[in-house]
């Protein structure tokens, strides 16, 4: 019989407790091994030559002098990474991003790479590579890039999603539309209609650890890669395909991860390290500098968004529409589509329409960033909702509660919702003491809602019973937010043993079947589902072993409180057998004991959050300080509440940085002006208040313990909540993120000028 993932009410013993984190000691003592901490015998230092131009045709690359430099062991260009993608345009884009082929498409695009005996030699060799460019006009602004007169990035891209199919290429890669009803009719029913335009600047995930890997490809076609990643199985698949290797021949081990937030779901330097190694015959290590991380990996979209919402004086929204334009870098992705799907997802709308445009610009390839694309859309929508509430004189939470989606609502992206948590998070926020706390001078309060889908995916897990009865878990989802602790709690819960007797490790790609990335808030949701299945399989084995030990039918053996117990009056004198007892007898009852599970975890369940924020704005400097912040979010079931709170706080902290300071600044030459943490300022501890959290637990019906993903939704409301707070503090509506001091001073000046 297959595994049934349905939720069942139960009393928890381990799940919901807060044991010390198992990775904490190694991390605070410096013993934890991150991407750059692994070394292979005889390894070389890899360095990448990057384009200084935002847009340029590559006419010639001469590597002869670099190759002749003593100590240089290999030099590669696109010719050493031939196109093996066989018409797969998504994979080709990955290849082209890892090493430019005919054109450099952004400042920082890789054009060649070297491997040498030391860093100094490698950098000297980069200086000896001659690249002849034909510099082309560039475009970095999303709105400008949509104009017919804009420089064209790629002549192979034709706008998708429009009818008839275009015959000329365009920077507009794709158009998507969602919604239902008749928005024009709905706007006619409204007493008040507000239409506003918003912009958000490009931000980076800001992970502390840069991309790092060490790889080797041997003469016999086998290879190894040690890498900092959110998904080593996917990295293996993509690298193997790009290098023409068999997947099984490439063994990939994931390191500890110093933050990813979506930025480490994409390969960047890994195929380059492997290609350098293949040519040199020695391992190659590449560690990106911070400047390389900013210039060539991971930012989210810059956006330009128009929102129009109509409302009756009683607070009923009659219609809502949005046009969302998202930059993608030079390669298309689903970014505007995700903004269009999520923009109005919190609300029950009779008439709604959202249209998304993905736009190619000369910036680095857009990567996923924690609930990708949803925060910008929520910022625009939640700003207009707040303005409407003020316009009709209605409490801002009451307006949201009145229009909140509920079970049976047709979502703005299509399907009808089952049981969902937006209403409960709003009600909890309304009752929270934060909402009625007094505000000081120059202070303002704002709140906002947010939505994210969450998803699961392919998952493979092993649960091994040791010879002393303690348990090891081998999981294939990288631990980005405490999943080793939460998965150990789940295994302890299901087996009925203490948490301290379980240890989880992230296994390499040779040890388990394929696992999808840790993304979509799926790590604990998916792997806990697989582990529950694996634990139940192990219990089945242990019941069989106990039956052998007792010489009774297995049907007479039950599993209770971590022990095999004999059922029925005729076995009344048999003492229960612990996992330790059964493990000790294992050599004579059939050998090693383990439980395995391979499944697709689906039915993750959508997620909602409501945030409340107080800010204080200095009208002289334009500086903003967040003085109080509260997150209310549904976790389904919080397996390790401290980690769940950490996810809520982390999302809010990143949102605060994005809302107030973080921004890619490009010069007129198309070059990034601030590729470092000095000029790209992320919030530090002293910038932030203690972020208060409230966990709601509305069980997910599609997980045995009711678990939902919690990692992403918490970054969706902050931009809107903080924009509303700042706007309320200033008495001026802020429509451009980040609300950095110059923008706030400019907005105040404009308001004074009338």
């Amino acid at each position, binding site marked *: 019989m297959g595994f049934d993932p349905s939720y069942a009410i139960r009393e928890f013993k381990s799940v919901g407790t807060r044991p010390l984190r198992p990775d904490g000691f190694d991390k605070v003592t410096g013993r934890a091994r991150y991407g750059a901490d692994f070394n292979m015998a005889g390894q070389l230092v890899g360095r990448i030559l990057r384009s200084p131009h935002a847009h340029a045709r590559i006419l010639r690359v001469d590597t002869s002098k670099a190759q002749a430099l003593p100590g240089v062991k290999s030099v590669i260009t696109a010719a050493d990474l031939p196109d093996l993608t066989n018409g797969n345009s998504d994979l080709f884009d990955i290849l082209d991003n890892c090493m430019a082929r005919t054109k450099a498409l952004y400042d920082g695009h890789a054009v060649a790479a070297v491997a040498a005996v030391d860093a100094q030699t490698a950098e000297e060799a980069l200086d000896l590579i001659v690249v002849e460019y034909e510099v082309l006009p560039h475009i970095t602004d999303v709105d400008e890039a949509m104009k017919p007169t804009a420089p064209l990035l790629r002549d192979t891209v034709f706008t998708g999603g429009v009818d008839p199919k275009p015959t000329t290429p365009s920077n507009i890669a794709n158009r998507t539309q969602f919604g239902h009803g008749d928005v024009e009719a709905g706007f006619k029913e409204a007493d008040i209609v507000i239409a506003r335009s918003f912009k958000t600047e490009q931000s980076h995930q800001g992970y502390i650890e840069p991309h790092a890997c060490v790889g080797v490809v041997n003469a016999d076609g086998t290879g190894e890669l040690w890498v900092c990643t959110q998904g080593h199985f996917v990295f293996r698949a993509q690298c193997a395909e790009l290098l023409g290797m068999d997947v099984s021949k490439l063994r990939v081990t994931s390191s500890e991860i110093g933050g990813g937030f979506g930025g480490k779901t994409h390969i960047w330097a890994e195929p380059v390290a492997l290609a350098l190694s293949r040519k040199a015959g020695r391992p190659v290590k590449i560690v990106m500098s911070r400047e390389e991380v900013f210039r060539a990996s991971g930012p989210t979209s810059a956006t330009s968004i128009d929102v129009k919402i109509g409302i009756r004086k009683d607070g009923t929204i009659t219609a809502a529409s949005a046009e969302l334009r998202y930059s993608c870098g030079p390669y298309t992705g*689903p970014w505007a589509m995700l903004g269009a799907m999520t923009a109005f997802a919190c609300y029950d709308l009779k008439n709604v329409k959202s249209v998304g445009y993905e736009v190619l610009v000369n910036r680095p390839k857009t990567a996923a960033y924690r609930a990708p694309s949803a925060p910008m859309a929520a910022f625009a929508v939640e700003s207009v909702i707040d303005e409407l509430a003020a316009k009709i004189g209605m409490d801002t939470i009451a307006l949201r509660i009145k229009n909140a989606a509920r079970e049976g609502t047709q979502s703005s992206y299509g399907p009808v919702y089952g049981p969902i948590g937006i209403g409960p998070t709003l009600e909890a926020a309304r009752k929270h003491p934060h909402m009625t706390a007094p505000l000081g001078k120059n202070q303002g309060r704002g709140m906002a809602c947010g939505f994210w889908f969450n998803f699961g995916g392919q998952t493979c897990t092993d649960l091994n019973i040791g010879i002393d009865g303690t348990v090891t878990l081998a999981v294939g989802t990288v631990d980005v937010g405490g999943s080793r602790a939460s998965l150990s709690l789940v295994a302890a819960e299901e087996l009925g043993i203490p948490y301290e007797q379980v240890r989880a490790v992230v296994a390499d790609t040779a040890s388990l079947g394929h696992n999808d990335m840790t993304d979509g808030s799926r790590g604990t949701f998916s792997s806990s589902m697989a582990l529950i299945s694996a634990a139940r399989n192990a219990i089945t084995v242990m019941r069989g072993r106990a039956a052998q030990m007792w010489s009774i039918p297995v049907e007479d053996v039950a599993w209770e409180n971590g022990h095999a117990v004999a059922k029925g009056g005729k076995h009344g004198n048999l003492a229960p057998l612990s996992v330790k007892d059964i493990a000790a007898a294992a050599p004579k009852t059939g050998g090693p004991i383990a439980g395995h599970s391979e499944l697709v975890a689906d039915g993750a369940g959508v997620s909602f959050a409501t945030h409340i924020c107080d800010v204080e704005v200095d009208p002289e400097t334009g500086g903003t300080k967040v003085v109080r912040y509260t997150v209310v979010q549904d976790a389904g079931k919080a397996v390790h509440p401290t980690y769940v709170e950490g996810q809520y706080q982390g999302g809010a902290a990143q949102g605060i940085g994005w809302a107030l300071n973080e921004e890619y600044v490009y010069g007129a030459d198309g070059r990034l002006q601030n590729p470092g943490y000095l000029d790209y300022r992320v919030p530090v501890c002293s910038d932030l208040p203690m972020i208060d959290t409230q966990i709601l637990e509305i069980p997910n019906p599609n997980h045995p313990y009711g678990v939902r993903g919690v990692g992403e939704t918490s970054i969706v409301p902050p931009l809107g909540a903080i924009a509303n707070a700042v706007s309320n503090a200033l008495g001026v509506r802020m429509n451009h993120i980040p609300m950095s001091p110059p923008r706030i001073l400019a907005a105040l000046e404009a308001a004074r000028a009338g």
Partner: protein
Amino acid sequence: MVEVRLGRSFAAAADGHETVEVEATDIRELFRILADRFPGLVPFIERGIAVSIDGVIYRDTWSKELPAGAEIFLLPRLAGG
């Protein structure tokens, strides 16, 4: 027979149909029939279409049954961080 809503994102690839009726008992059969009837949907199916059944989104469980009377909605495959 189940009613499947394609939404505007897939209708263009399905000869403009936003809703179709399909004699299918699970997601695998649904995709097989849709691919036969609307070849324009094949690239999307190969890239990944998620199926919402009564509001629960399934990305990969092609063995999932399609209950009679259920609301079935096709969605683009999602990306996450």
